[in-house]
């Protein structure tokens, strides 16, 4: 992954890496982390964050100012992201996280309007087909996230998930 990240100014501002005790300041700081994390995952096309890795991640370690975030701080930020539906802990120990740079609701909406625009409604689409559509935001979308988004559509009665032999398909109405 050699995408060049455009770091925001905060990334080179040492206090960015200390969770601020002043609540007003902290809110802004967390907002900035949220934007940065979501952009980072979007640009590197990643969907899952593993906390056992954070010490190797440039995102949480700025070696040029020798500052980094520790695990507890990262969890605090991810909890903040969870509140805006932009993250979700996969396991109870909060070790692995889904990062939703579009919330599930947005993903569902994007896929739904794509299907409508491209006249793919009322026919069965495999998950693979959706994921391998070129030049769409959901190209190569993480399969679990895709499944979750489609489940959301299903609950809104806009789609139906069908189990095929060895894969899943969906019918969008």
């Amino acid at each position: 992954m050699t995408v060049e990240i455009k770091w925001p100014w905060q990334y080179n501002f040492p206090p960015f890496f200390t969770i601020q005790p002043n609540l007003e300041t902290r809110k802004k700081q967390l907002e900035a982390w949220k934007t940065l994390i979501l952009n980072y995952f979007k640009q590197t096309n990643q969907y899952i964050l593993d906390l056992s890795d954070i010490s190797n991640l440039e995102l949480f370690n700025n070696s040029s100012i020798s500052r980094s975030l520790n695990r507890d701080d990262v969890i605090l930020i991810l909890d903040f992201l969870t509140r805006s539906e932009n993250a979700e802990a996969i396991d109870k120990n909060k070790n692995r996280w889904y990062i939703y740079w579009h919330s599930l609701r947005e993903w569902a909406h994007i896929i739904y309007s794509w299907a409508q625009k491209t006249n793919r409604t009322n026919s069965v689409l495999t998950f693979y087909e959706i994921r391998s559509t070129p030049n769409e935001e959901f190209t190569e979308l993480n399969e679990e996230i895709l499944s979750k988004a489609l489940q959301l559509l299903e609950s809104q009665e806009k789609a139906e998930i069908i189990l095929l032999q060895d894969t899943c398909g969906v019918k969008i109405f």
Partner: protein
Amino acid sequence: MDRFEYSTSNLQPNESYILRSYNIKLYDGDNKTLFENGELILTSHRLIWFLPGSNNYLSLYLKYIVYIEEEKPNVFMFSKSKRLNLYLIEPPKIRPPGPVSISSFNFIKLSFKDKLDIEFVNALNNVVQQKKWETVELVQKTDVKPPIKFRTGIVGIERSLEEKQKATNESISVAFQDLNKLMLMAKDMVDLSKNISTKIKDKQGDITDDETIKFKSYLLSLGVEDPVTRDTFQSDSEYFTQLANEICRIIEKPINEVSGIMVLTDVYCRVNRARGLELLSPQDFLSACKMMEKLKLPIVLRQFDSGVKVLQLASQSDEVIVDYIQSLLIQSTFLTAENLAKILDIPVILAKERLIIVEKFSKACRDESIEGLRFYPNKFLEDLYAFCFFFLLPMNSINFETEKQYSPSQWCSRHRRSDKVEQNHIENVTKLSQDVKNKFQCESNILFYQYQNPFSVSLDTIMTEMEELVEFLLEIGNARNWSSLWLGGHSAGAHLAASILCCNLRFSISGFILISGIYDLRPLINTSFNAALKLNDNSAKKLSPIFKFSTVLGAPFNNKILLVMGEFESPAFLEQQQRFAQEFIKIGLKIKTEIISNADHFQIVEWLNDENYSLTKIIIEMIRAES
């Protein structure tokens, strides 16, 4: 032999004479000594050896003797033994002087002239066994004599140190006695100084000014005249009130010198130093300080969250301190408590408290790392809103029906003559631009990107350039810590801004202000503008934001898009806004739409530099609203 000491022949109390023997020679271990042909007296406590007729007596205390033994006869000698060996214990470290200072032998010999004096030997054995010296300890006369220091080596040094210590202890206790006397004296001194000061007051004429000043300075250095003491007051509260006043008087000037704040312990020391006598207890002092605020004194007691107590000038509010330290922070990028302590010349603990106050006021933020705790200016809350606003100034219009609909100058409430309207508008907007630049220089960055002649280039080119401009702005924004970039436009400018809004949003723009915009270009094909625009149905569709509506406009844009028109705009413009707004509603995005009453197409922006103008207020409110 070193157990012998000089003495007199006088018997000590409780000592009794027992026996005398003659012609005795002393041996130090196996070595002969110069002490020959002397007489030896045995008493209940000692052996005393002396030369007849001499006044030099050597005595050996019997307590040193552990064992007495007749020397075995020499095999080559036929005679019987005439020597007696006395084995001795180690001598004490400190002892009166004797004939030999150090000996390597732990025994001496008494040599009798002809043969052992059996009677003497038996008597000696008896006396040593009786140990009379143990029942009554002899008062050693030699103790009274000043010791003669001739010992050297480590033992000597140790001894002299011990003596010195003893002497110091004594002199300290003497000194304390003196101090008590001094306190009494000091009281007299203060009385005296009071007398002098009243005399100075009375006889001011007689004494020169110089002398008065000199005297006064002497008096000041004597401390507080007439310190407030507990026993002069009936009630505690009265005492504390007076004490609080006194503390204020003493400390106000010094506290001013150290930038208005002083740790309580420092104040306590200073006050007690100034009083000199009648020292205050910490409890009384604290109680007095607690009264200060009630008494509305110029100095108040303050306790920080960490528990540190200080006295502080009442006039010095937190706001003033915060402002000052904030300016220091900005000058020096970051500060540690140590840095600030140096700058303000205050203790480090206070410097830290101050930085924490600044942080509390949201004017600083912290950086905690292995390099220590540093405070930075709070850039997180520095709201630099960037607002990029496009104006495209219309050309002269021609009077046809469609033309009329799309020629805003035909739809204005002020002037009949349309050309004049536009002329006016250009002047007004230029002035507005200038005003805003001057007014908001510090608060926000507003860039005015003016096309002198928009229709000389194709709309496509303009679009591309706009996108480049936005990209450029975002880069600047990143470098200058803009917290958000807003895009806005008026009329054709609104069209540009809306195009960027709809171009799949490659840019992270915070929000859009679209004023009197055209979002569907097709109606323009039939106007004279098209001579310059050169639009056909296809290209018009391609360049119309309404047909490129982005599906990815997500929740972050809720309440971040404003569509606004003037009440007196042409129906065609009003319809454009309505249709565009519909598109947002379709994707479920909340946007703001406004119609500004009494405004036409031009006034709607010309009034923007009036803070009380409703549209100005709406825009500012939107930009400042939390995301």
